[in-house]
């Protein structure tokens, strides 16, 4: 740590380079901090270390091929990314999805939300110096990943949600597995809260730290738990419902304090709300029924049909060689990811490959408020602020 000359720095201030390999940045984020003693005067995030050009790659793939790319953006929320992308393509095509498939999607996405919040809670607790919570959170996350493996064969990059429905029928014994999880989870959330909520160190590190007013939060386009912790009950599942969310009963937890501690409380409350939604979805999913919409030429035919019917074989061949062409036009769909509004904008020019695919990633947008949040805070609080914004760098850089 040496004093360096900078454009804004004076003799009194010091510039500290944080990252890109700092463990608490949860990926490869670099922040240049201008410090006066321990107080942050200015912060300049530097990103792009994980930029892989996913949006450009999507333009060179057919609509169904791009699904696997979406898995890899926000790697803690692959199913949510699949959902945003598939909903946007379906909107372009004007496809109606069977109710059963919609409920399966909701159930999977809510399980994903719980697992994402668990990773957040565990890693944030480590950042704040509480090692054990991390181990407990990952123990429960493992159970969710096992459920994903049961449904799709993959633990993380599931690509389970497809254009027109979901990839596979729910496997044998899925109800028992999810019921077991639902039975276990509430007491486990109580355990985390017992460890943290009243913990003096936890409160000391988070309460009153990183306050952002609701006016600023909206002005900086923040969404998700960060906005809800500032007192605004803005949740896409309620405001612009998609995938039949209007049929589910759940609350949108909000807090007024708008500090790091409020964001923690909102996320823990969201885990409990998601458990409610999973339970309702499970009751709504019937044992038999369609998981894909009947749209020949868009949704691949079943293996059985492909072997016996000529049309099915032709459609199969056409989908996997040429793809399908939505009519020219644009569609924007926003879903509520664990981090905020995840939007997918697709422009079609009537060809089998999209003209433009854009992802409005919540981490990227929420991160831009970081300099505003950490201004005047202590250096150690920067870590708490980054943590509670909950960024995933894979999604920030895309």
């Amino acid at each position, binding site marked *: 740590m040496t004093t360096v000359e900078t454009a804004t720095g004076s003799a009194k201030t010091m510039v500290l380079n944080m990252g890109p390999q700092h463990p608490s940045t949860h990926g490869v984020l670099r922040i240049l901090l201008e410090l006066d003693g321990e107080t942050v005067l200015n912060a300049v995030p530097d990103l792009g270390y994980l930029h892989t050009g996913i*949006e450009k790659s999507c333009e060179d793939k057919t609509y169904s091929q791009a699904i696997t790319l979406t898995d890899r953006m926000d790697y803690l929320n692959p199913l949510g990314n699949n959902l945003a992308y598939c909903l946007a393509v379906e909107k372009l095509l004007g496809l*109606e999805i069977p109710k059963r498939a919609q409920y399966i999607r909701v159930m999977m996405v809510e399980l994903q939300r719980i697992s994402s919040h668990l990773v957040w809670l565990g890693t944030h607790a480590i950042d704040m110096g509480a090692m054990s919570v991390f181990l407990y959170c990952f123990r429960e996350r493992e159970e969710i990943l096992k459920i994903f493996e049961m449904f799709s064969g993959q633990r993380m990059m599931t690509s389970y949600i497809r254009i027109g429905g979901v990839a596979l029928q729910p496997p044998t014994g899925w109800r028992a597995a999810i019921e077991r999880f639902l039975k276990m989870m509430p007491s486990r959330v109580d355990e985390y809260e017992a460890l943290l909520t009243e913990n003096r160190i936890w409160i000391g590190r988070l309460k009153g730290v990183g306050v952002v007013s609701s006016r600023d939060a909206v002005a900086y386009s923040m969404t998700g738990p960060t906005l809800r912790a500032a007192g605004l009950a803005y949740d896409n599942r309620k405001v612009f419902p998609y995938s039949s969310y209007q049929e589910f009963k759940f609350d949108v937890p909000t807090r007024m304090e708008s500090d790091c501690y409020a964001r923690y409380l909102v996320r823990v409350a969201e885990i409990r709300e998601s458990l409610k939604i999973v339970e309702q979805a499970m009751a709504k999913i019937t044992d038999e029924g369609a998981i894909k919409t009947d749209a020949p030429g868009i949704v691949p035919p079943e293996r059985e049909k492909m072997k016996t019917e000529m049309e099915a074989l032709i459609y199969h061949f056409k989908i996997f060689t040429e793809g399908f062409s939505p009519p020219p036009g644009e569609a*924007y769909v926003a879903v509520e990811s664990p981090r905020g509004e995840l939007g997918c*904008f697709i422009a079609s020019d009537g060809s089998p490959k999209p003209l433009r695919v854009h992802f*409005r990633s919540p981490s990227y947008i929420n991160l831009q408020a970081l300099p505003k949040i950490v201004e005047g805070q202590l250096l150690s609080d920067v870590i708490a602020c980054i943590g509670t914004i909950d960024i995933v760098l894979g999604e920030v850089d895309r």
Partner: protein
Amino acid sequence: MTESPSPTSGVVVETLRAWNPKAIAEVIEYRGETTIVVPRELLRATATQCRENAKLHFNLLTDATCVDRYPVEPRFELNYQLVSISCRDTVRLRTRLDGQNPVVDSLVAVWPGANWLEREIFDLFGVRFTGHPDLRRILLPDNWEGHPLRKDFPVEGHRDTPVSRDMFKKSAPL
């Protein structure tokens, strides 16, 4: 997923038309989404109106992105996705820019959240925003040549161009 057009979209168009008839060049309704095409010169004024007018109150700019329609001119299409939290409404503002001089007023003064969105568009499309406080590349290295999301930029990059040696040496200015 066919939806009826949002009930308030007529109000948005009428209110804007009453404010300045020239502000609306075209209204596109597609799949339940309303897109209002705005002339380039009036973009900032219209955006300010969308935010400040009590009837509209589009206080949240959720997304901004660009579409390159090369070789059609005007090739660039900027799309701003606005949300009114109080009215539960959403609308898209669009403006078209030609390839020769892709310059448009920055909306950072209207929504501070437009900052990184515009930097991303500048970085990947080369559209310049006048009045932007900090128009630097954001995802790519500062000395990257070209704008990769343009349609005339090959998907695999310019293979024959040697990568400049000090590409990763220069740090971002503070």
